[in-house]
């Protein structure tokens, strides 16, 4: 699949804000039909990296190049002011002119077609998340960036949405950049994993990354085992922050 079109390329890119580097030395490529996943602890620069790719943030160092024609974004957090009356159908059309068939089709895919005329403010967190994903895929992008796309979605819905994302990358033959905490999904469907912590700690295929000492240092041995075998025995317990207490 190497002859697939290069959609975006970062070369040694970095963002400097408030007298520190949010991320630095990021080099990566996303090609057509490829799913690239960013993982890393809080504050490691995942969203910042996504924003560089989407041209929302200008880089202070390095280069962003690419030839994606149509990019679509599912942001991690979006707040719509209550003063604006906005139905799902209006929200679907904010950055592109879609007809009702296109809108309904993609809402059906994410399972929220019944909410077409509901006010955005009346949706639950999970419903809104599905609308966000539907909006992004409705415009048939060639590069889709998803920042924690399934937050607030119930467990069964989560699996369905992840399957949908995989399906989209095949059907639309688009490139996908995914920021995710869901290691099972990362393992089973991602082509390329990038482990971030202000810089790229390690990257490669999922099975290689979990064996990387940098990864193990960041996420702990147990996580690595989870990923390699999809199951693990509990020989420890977790603190609230996810660290391990033996």
């Amino acid at each position: 699949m190497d002859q697939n079109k290069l959609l975006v390329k970062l070369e040694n890119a970095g963002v400097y804000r408030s007298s520190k580097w949010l991320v630095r030395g990021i080099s990566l490529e996303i090609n057509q039909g490829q799913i690239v996943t960013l993982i890393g602890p809080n504050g490691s620069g995942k969203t910042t990296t996504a924003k560089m790719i989407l041209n929302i943030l200008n880089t202070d160092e390095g280069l962003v190049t690419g030839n994606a024609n149509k990019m679509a974004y599912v942001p991690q957090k979006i707040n719509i002011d209550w003063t604006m009356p906005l139905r799902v159908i209006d929200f679907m059309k904010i950055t592109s002119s879609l007809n009702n068939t296109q809108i309904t089709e993609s809402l059906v895919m994410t399972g929220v077609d019944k909410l077409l005329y509901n006010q955005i403010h009346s949706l639950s967190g999970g419903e809104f998340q599905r609308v966000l994903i539907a909006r992004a895929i409705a415009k048939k992008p060639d590069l889709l960036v998803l920042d924690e796309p399934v937050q607030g979605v119930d467990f069964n819905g989560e699996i369905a949405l992840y399957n949908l994302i995989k399906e989209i990358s095949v059907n639309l033959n688009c490139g996908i950049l995914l920021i995710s905490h869901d290691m099972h999904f990362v393992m089973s469907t991602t082509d390329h994993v990038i482990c971030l912590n202000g810089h790229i700690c390690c990257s490669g295929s999922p099975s290689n990354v979990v064996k990387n000492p940098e990864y193990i240092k960041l996420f702990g041995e147990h996580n690595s085992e989870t990923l390699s075998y999809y199951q693990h025995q509990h020989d420890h317990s977790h603190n609230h922050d996810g660290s391990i207490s033996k």
Partner: protein
Amino acid sequence: MFDDFFMRALIAGIGIAIVTGPLGCLVIWRRLSYFGDTLSHSALLGVTLAYAFSINISLSVFIISGTVALLLLSLQKRTKLAGDSLLGLLAHSTLAIGLVLIGFLSSIRFDLMGLLFGDILAVTVEDIFIVWFGGLIILGILFYIWKSIFAATVNYDLAAAEGMKPDLSNFIFTLLLAGVIAISIKMIGALLITGLLLIPAATARSLSSNPRQMVILSILVGIISVILGLFSSLELNTASGPSIIVAALVLFILSLISFKRSGALQK
């Protein structure tokens, strides 16, 4: 039927209401009411300069308010002061400079009340031309950038990521706001313009379920406020600018009552 001066006031007032409708919605959605206040306070300086150099009031106000608006945009990026402090700083310092300058221009007689609260009954045919011509230009540009400015209002990141050029449309929108203040200062006055931007749009909010509806309703509510305000001003012999704002307020209160009754949007 009516006296000429009254017809002129009516025609100009309706023209202003048509422009403040959509801009007022954007001001409310983007939480820019303080921003509007700052621009209109600085407009007083524009008026003073217009008198001092005998140039057209609307032109001079547009230049001053536009400059203040651009200054604000660039200061917001550079200083660590919170947005509202910066707005207050500019609003009051430009207002003060305007008033100090008025003191220097003692040879010219000023109707300070007229500047602050507008004098819709002194509208000339030239003013009508300025309102409608300027208003059409503002609406034309707004129509052209609507998709982009609307996307940026819903979410900046989405708009930026998906090629809607939000920075450019923010910049243009700011100038349009200065423009609407420039065409309406003579009739509504520096202290009341924000009221005509905000109140009809706020009234429309509780009655509408989508953005387009809210824009159309806020234009209608603005027009009704102008008509009611002017008639009551004629009947009761009250100042016209404030009468329009009071009429708008009455409509707002009525909309709240009907909103509560019907329970619209409760879904």
